[in-house]
């Protein structure tokens, strides 16, 4: 079981709900992923279309817990206000805190992130900060009261996998007891398996499933990869070597020359 603040979940695959071709395909993907946590956001609601009401009734009909985000916020004030609004609408103190610092990479503004995290934790929020793999930022977020960290694998929506393996491995090694969820940049199930094999506790996937030709099939593939990666981590992967070592015993080999 994975403990996220005071909640225990079985599935180590968290799913985003954005960019699916249709609500039906989103529902199928959530079911195929067998996930327990999905991310959601807040956007302007038109009183005519009421698109948000339809989306919310779909999510509420599914056996999932929601993790609202502050996507698109570029300042501490925007992120904190969005968190307040999300807490009321979604009736949860969970918040995936995003403070964006740069538009091309959607790289987090880690200074604003730490400041916003401190404010929100003081107000009783359980903050899931979207961060770079920086060790010092991780320290500051933990000091602010974060009990889960969400380092990026690669820029949001890029599908490039784990860009900085050394940095991510260092983060895992430095904070062995903190739940670490790879958020963003994962493109294919092998990236997710790799994250779990490295000891990360979970992955959050959106675009890789939503933009697959068959989202539900891809969601199922991710569920299997996450399960395989987690099981492999428990099994204890071998240490890589630079040179070959024969796997078949040398002793007892016939002399046939």
């Amino acid at each position, binding site marked *: 079981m994975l403990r996220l603040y005071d909640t225990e979940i079985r599935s180590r695959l968290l799913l*985003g*709900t*954005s*960019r*699916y071709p249709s609500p039906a395909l*989103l529902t199928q993907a959530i079911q195929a992923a067998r996930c327990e946590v999905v*991310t*959601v*956001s*807040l*956007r*302007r*609601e*038109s*009183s*005519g279309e*009421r*698109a*948000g*009401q339809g*989306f*919310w009734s779909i*999510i509420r009909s599914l056996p999932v817990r929601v993790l*609202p*985000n502050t*996507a698109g916020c570029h300042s501490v*004030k925007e992120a904190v*206000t969005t968190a*307040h*609004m*999300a807490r*009321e*609408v*979604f009736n949860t103190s969970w918040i995936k805190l995003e403070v964006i610092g740069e538009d091309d990479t959607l790289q987090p503004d880690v200074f604003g992130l730490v400041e916003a995290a401190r404010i929100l934790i003081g107000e009783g929020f359980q903050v899931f900060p979207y961060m770079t793999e920086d060790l010092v930022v991780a320290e500051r977020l933990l000091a602010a009261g974060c009990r889960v960290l969400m380092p990026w694998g690669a820029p*949001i*929506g890029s599908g490039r996998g784990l860009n900085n393996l050394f940095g991510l491995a260092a983060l895992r090694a430095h904070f062995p007891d903190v739940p670490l969820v790879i958020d*963003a940049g994962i493109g294919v199930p092998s990236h997710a398996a790799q994250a779990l094999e490295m000891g990360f506790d979970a992955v*959050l996937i*959106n*675009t890789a499933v939503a933009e697959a030709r068959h989202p539900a099939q891809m969601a199922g593939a991710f569920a299997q990869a996450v399960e395989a990666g987690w099981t492999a981590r428990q099994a204890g992967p071998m240490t890589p070597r630079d040179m070959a070592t024969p796997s078949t015993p040398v002793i007892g080999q016939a002399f046939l020359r």
Partner: protein
Amino acid sequence: MRILVNGDWRETAGSDLASVLRELGYADAVVATALNGEFVAVAARARAHLTEGDRVEVLAPMQGG
């Protein structure tokens, strides 16, 4: 009175946030509101008085990553 609602100018008769939301068709909707950039909780909407040119944001659950 003219106020900005989700970026569009709207003519409203109500003078507080709760009545303006009803007037604009959000009465039964699951939404969160902000007035001039500050969050206004459901319970505080009736006390939130509006003046000409105020900016109101009405947000609802939406797809997110």
